């Protein structure tokens, strides 16, 4: 269980998160939706410990992530895998070296074991045989899938997805959605997906939470979100220009 308790985060005078409270159950896929710049990615970075909150606590199965420092924090990240918005592949390394990066640090696998695991993970994301390619030789969708292979290679318990369908065509986006669902079934992981793509949200989510003005204003199953009486939720999920979010 991940518990986000009264988390605040500001950048200079700009308050991004203003008391976020959220519980994510073990094994569920929680989709956090919200406008661009609403602090969704910041929330993910706080979850994994890349950033520290100004106030509040993030608890993962009783372990306070926000209190960890240095090597302790680095060890705790072993439980997380993260797919970055633009994949964040290391551009000086081949695809195989990218996927093997976490394996070399987090596992005791030897060179043969690593090679096999890399091939397995690439096969899982539908990209067998591209081990020797460099990131600049891949399309946007392929980069995302390699990023996903890298994130799942060391079998983390929690996978964080930062805008998994952004910047790729709808067919590739749906392939990523299918992968998220498949990984949940096969690896029984807890998934946190950040997106503003409602098609993806409805497809992969067990529950959806809306982040608005630095707080979670609504949380529920995809069905409950669709039927929400909250005007902010309705404006966002239907993508209307007029409504309380835009003050029109």
């Amino acid at each position: 269980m991940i518990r986000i308790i009264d988390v605040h985060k500001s950048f200079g005078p700009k308050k991004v998160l203003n008391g976020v409270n959220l519980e994510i159950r073990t094994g569920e896929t929680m989709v956090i939706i919200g406008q661009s710049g609403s602090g969704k990615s910041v929330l993910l970075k706080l979850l994994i410990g890349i950033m520290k909150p100004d106030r509040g606590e993030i608890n993962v199965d009783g372990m306070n992530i926000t209190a960890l420092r240095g090597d302790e924090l680095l060890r705790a990240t072993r439980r997380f895998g993260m797919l970055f918005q633009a994949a964040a592949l290391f551009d000086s390394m081949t695809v195989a070296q990218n996927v093997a990066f976490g394996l070399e640090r987090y596992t005791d696998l030897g060179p043969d074991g690593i090679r096999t695991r890399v091939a397995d993970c690439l096969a899982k994301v539908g990209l067998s045989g591209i081990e020797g390619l460099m990131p600049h030789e891949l399309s946007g969708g392929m980069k995302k899938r390699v990023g996903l292979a890298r994130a799942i290679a060391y079998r983390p318990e929690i996978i964080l997805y930062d805008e998994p369908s952004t910047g790729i065509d709808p067919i590739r986006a749906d392939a990523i959605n299918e992968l998220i669902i498949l990984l949940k079934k096969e690896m029984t992981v807890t998934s946190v997906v950040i997106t503003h793509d409602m098609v993806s949200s409805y497809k992969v989510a067990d529950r959806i939470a809306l982040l608005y003005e630095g707080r979670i204003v609504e949380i529920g199953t995809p069905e409950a979100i669709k039927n929400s009486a909250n005007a902010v939720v309705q404006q966002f999920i239907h993508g209307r220009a007029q409504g309380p979010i835009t003050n029109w």
Partner: protein
Amino acid sequence: MGRDQRISLLAEFFRQLGEVALLSSRTFRNLFKRPWEKKIFLQQLEEIGVRTLPVISLTAAFGGLVFALQTYIGFHRYIGPGSEAYGGPIISLGLTKELIPILVGLMAAGRVGSSMAAEIGTMKITEQVDALFTLGADPNRYLVVPRTVAAFLMLPCLTLFGDIIGIICGLIYNVVVMGVNGTVYLRNTLLYLELWDVLTGVLKAGVFGVIIAVIGCWQGLKAEGGAEGVGRATTRTVVIASISILISNFFLSKFLPGNLSL
């Protein structure tokens, strides 16, 4: 400039100084922690050492030539014809203690420091630094430590190499081009140039190496705002590192003993 502006400028200066101090102390502590990023370290040795060698050779050669040219004129004009052969020790001392370490430092700041800032800055804005962290690699241990140690080791090597090139070019100018007595020139050079003179320059170069790497990595790690941000980080690295080298060189020259027996 108003009083408030001066205070905020001063505060900003100390804030940035604090950032560098924090990064330096973290880097120093991480020197003794495992795992050691051997592969990155070896790559950096090659990048800082081998790939900078042609630039250093050219700079040291022309540094030696121009220094020899002015020394020749000085001796010829003020002491008299025939005294130019006594310029050897002065040329060697000036080159090994001051000119070559500074030239190596400034060249490395331009070539190596800027490339560190650009590479790490690009990694920062494309979230590769965050990705390192999520995959169990401490960004400081992975990026900053190998670069700092490699620069600390390679700048003295480059300086030694530059010393040899500079001294040889000085000798060629005086003896071959200007017809100075080669035996006297060489004897004087070997007689009066001490090992400590060479070591002083080498020691300075080690300090310059640390300055360049820490500033390059610091600017890279704080880069933001896309390609423009990376460009700014690169420019700042060259400017800050060059100024820091010149300032620290004065203090090192002032406080390092003139010879080992002192």
